[in-house]
């Protein structure tokens, strides 16, 4: 057994920042991560970090842009904290040596980004995330913070007090990927989940294969609600075979989208008669999918993004990195042929329900980064707002877990007096574990929550060991890859940019089937050494739980807000829906309820039409 004051699960931008902060606040801190820190997906972020650093800009403007971009579903105290703390945190990165792009006078450069009223996106070439990740890992090395890398966290150790608000988190159970050893990690002060996004719930995503929503699922099963899970951002131009992102810059420079018939469909079919290819992300993504659905897609799968007419000189001058991406990852030469593109899952606005100190309703359990929902992004995230979230709220969670006093949070968490129960929507199938046999403890369910606190950790470790043995001893059944593929396909088919009541219900039925099939899952690889089959089997279970919450949220929210579009009601409905969707796991079943959004902080944010 290992023991530390603060245990940070995950070593992307949020986890590293949390660990540094907890360490600085004097806590004995350790990071447990399934990937070596520098492999984390934060390294893929390209664009930049929003921070009001310059004269003419201020935190109020940044907060205002964020609230507006969120389609008024962000909580004001969260957006304001982000905007207030981002400048200091960004400069902190510079003081740690981050190689930001520079102006002639040697100061860090900023550039304009969509939805921002001031060019406040601070960047380091087209590799901002890479540098942010490496700079913070360097600081972790400098401080000698203990990192357990390639340790996969399987479950949280919480007691099972009837009310999740009375529960406490005591640590985690993890296994050493290299040796297969399952061990307990006791956390004297707190556990911080910084496990990143759940992009792998979809079969086409810009997210890494490691983005499997593990933290979401673990917190959910332990009793902390997931918030606003239906809000998923899709990017209209990702490469079909890998999901690698093709910059909006191509369309900005004049790139044209064609269907298989060679028609410029954004105009021909009237998706956006004025702005054409430059319409907003969600409009373009839906147009592309409509083309494919109506049989005008290339190979029934994608559309073409053509930039050849811009001429070689201009392409080389402005879009050279796009040529490299298309060549390296799709085998296509953008100078001589159009590039195939299709919409891809990109970012999850929702996540584990936390307050502005990173705390969930379970004491000692924190979350930060993309796995958390403070909520800063509400219905839609602005480009360049995720990276500052990592450092601002990563730091706060680290400090709070280490015992620093950050004042009382204004944001509520968990099921409480201010919530409203979901009563209207009938579900197509019973979600959750729904009484499935949990023999062997391998169902995608809540097993693993122990009863008494005495020997809690030991028993949790035993439970996971038994689960591993069960999965490995079993010689036949279904392999996780099959279930995962089916799940991902259903999510992409039905809970994508197009959402209909009927489609989402279909998805929920498939998810239910996946859950049933998972009862019979087994791990074929007999080895304890670096068994990625075992790890992925665990991840697939998490994906089932996370996908279900995304689909449930999408089903109940019958309106069009931010990135969530519903065919039946293509309007934003402020009268009924200025509230967060929360889903918590109670006795094996999802419980859906709502909490009003907070539109009043230091300033007041009146909902306005989201147009730019």
């Amino acid at each position, binding site marked *: 057994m290992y023991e530390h004051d603060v245990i940070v699960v995950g070593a992307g931008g949020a986890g590293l920042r949390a660990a540094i902060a907890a360490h600085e606040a004097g806590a004995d801190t350790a990071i447990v991560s399934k990937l070596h820190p520098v492999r984390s997906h934060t390294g893929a972020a390209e664009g930049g970090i929003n921070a009001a650093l310059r004269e003419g800009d201020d935190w109020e403007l940044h907060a205002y842009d964020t609230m507006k971009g969120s389609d008024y579903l962000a909580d004001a105290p969260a957006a304001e904290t982000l905007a207030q703390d981002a400048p200091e945190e960004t400069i902190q990165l510079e003081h740690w040596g981050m190689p930001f792009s520079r102006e002639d006078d040697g100061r860090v450069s900023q550039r304009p980004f969509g939805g921002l009223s001031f060019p406040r996106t601070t960047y380091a070439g087209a590799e901002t995330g890479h540098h942010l990740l490496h700079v913070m890992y360097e600081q972790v090395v400098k401080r000698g913070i203990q990192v357990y890398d390639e340790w996969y966290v399987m479950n949280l150790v919480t007691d099972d007090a009837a009310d999740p608000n009375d529960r406490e988190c005591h640590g985690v159970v993890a296994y050493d990927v290299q040796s297969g050893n399952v061990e307990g990690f006791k956390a004297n002060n707190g556990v911080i989940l910084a496990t990143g996004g759940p992009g792998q719930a979809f079969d086409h995503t810009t997210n890494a294969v490691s983005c499997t929503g593990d933290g979401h699922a673990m917190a959910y099963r332990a009793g902390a609600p997931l918030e606003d899970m239906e809000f998923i951002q899709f990017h209209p131009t990702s490469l079909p075979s890998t999901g690698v992102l093709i*910059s909006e810059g191509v369309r900005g420079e004049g790139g044209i989208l064609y269907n298989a018939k060679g028609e410029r469909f954004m105009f021909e079919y009237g998706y956006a008669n004025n702005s054409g290819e430059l319409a907003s992300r969600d409009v373009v993504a839906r147009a592309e999918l409509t083309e494919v659905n109506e049989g005008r897609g290339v190979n029934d799968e994608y559309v073409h993004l053509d930039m050849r007419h811009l001429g070689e000189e201009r392409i080389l001058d402005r879009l050279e990195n796009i040529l490299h991406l298309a060549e390296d990852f799709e085998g296509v030469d953008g100078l001589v042929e159009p590039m195939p593109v299709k919409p891809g899952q990109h970012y999850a606005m929702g996540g584990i329900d936390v307050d502005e100190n990173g705390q969930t309703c379970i004491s000692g359990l924190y979350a930060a980064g993309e796995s958390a929902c403070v909520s800063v992004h509400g219905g839609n995230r602005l480009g360049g707002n995720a990276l500052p979230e990592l450092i601002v709220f990563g730091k706060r969670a680290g400090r709070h877990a280490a015992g620093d006093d950050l004042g009382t949070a204004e944001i509520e968490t968990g099921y409480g007096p201010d919530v409203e129960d979901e009563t209207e929507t009938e579900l197509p199938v019973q979600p959750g574990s729904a009484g499935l046999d949990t023999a062997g403890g391998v169902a995608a369910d809540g097993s693993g929550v122990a009863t008494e606190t005495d020997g809690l950790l030991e028993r949790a470790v035993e439970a996971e060991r038994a689960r591993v043995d069960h999965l490995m001893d079993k010689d036949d059944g279904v392999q996780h890859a099959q279930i995962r593929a089916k799940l991902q396909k259903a999510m992409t088919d039905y809970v994508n940019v197009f959402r209909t009541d009927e489609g989402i219900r279909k998805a929920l039925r498939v998810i239910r089937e996946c859950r049933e099939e998972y009862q019979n899952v087994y791990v074929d690889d007999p080895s304890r050494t670096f068994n990625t089959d075992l790890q992925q089997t665990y991840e697939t279970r998490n994906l089932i739980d996370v996908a279900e919450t995304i689909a449930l949220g999408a089903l109940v929210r019958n309106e069009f807000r931010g990135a969530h579009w519903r065919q039946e009601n293509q309007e934003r409905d402020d009268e009924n829906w200025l509230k967060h969707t929360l889903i918590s796991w109670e006795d094996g079943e999802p419980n859906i309820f709502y909490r009003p959004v907070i539109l009043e902080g230091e300033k007041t944010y009146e909902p306005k039409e989201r147009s730019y």
Partner: protein
Amino acid sequence: MSTQQEQPQEPESQEAPEDPEMRGTESPQQERLKEKEQGLAQEEAVDESDVEGETVHLKVFRYDPEVEGKQEPRFDDFYVPFEKGMTVLDAVMYARDEFDSSLTFRHSCRQAVCGSDAFFVNGRQQLGCKTQISDLKQPVRIEPLPHQEVVKDLVVDMDHFYDQMHAVEPYFQQEELPDGDLEEQRQSRENREKVKMSTRCIWCAACMSSCNIAAGDNEYLGPAAINKAYRFAMDEREDEEIKEHRLRIVEQEHGVWRCQTQFSCTEVCPKDIPLTEHIQELKREAVKKNLKFW
């Protein structure tokens, strides 16, 4: 109220490289042609018609210390349906998900930023995710990185590599900072440009694996770690004393002087970092500073 309105001209982008740094002069195609002319291209590209709609033949190295039949290293054959744009990583993922779930390799980002999947493909260190199958001769031979201990199949032990990276004190050490929380250190564009390539390293260890010297001298810091030291030593934001401290670290017995400028690291680096040049420059700096020779 509708939010579905078309929004005019959103220059919005996650990546928008309007940045002059991002502009280059040559397309990848031109670069590749040039490479080929120079005889650097690793091998002839297979005509695409050979593989399109066909299967790709993979020969993959297998080893597991625990499992009977795998304790002796062997090669397994996999036949994977080819698709345009397929990378080596796509191919091994397909083989794993469809044929043999015990096939083990590290991978994550699929876009050449996480540095997990450097393999030895047809005799050359390269990232699986950045290598197009259509550029390779078949059968495609995929092995773990040479000169590193194999843990299982394509997974090698990275601890030694990490130790070497950590040995150069890879963190910014400037203590004196501008007054005021919101005051940044100044850095000239030229200086940022100078360290730019060195900061792109993704810790994939391809360079280390390709280096004969590192293979013969286990304590040799290796190209990646020396490059990391370069990244700081050349950064004007750190004071001269710190720079000297850094030079001392790299000019130790197992440091820069071991390099015999064979360029193998530079050739395999997926981030095109001019490693050999950086090593040479550090040698020159050390001489300039009159540091002790080995």
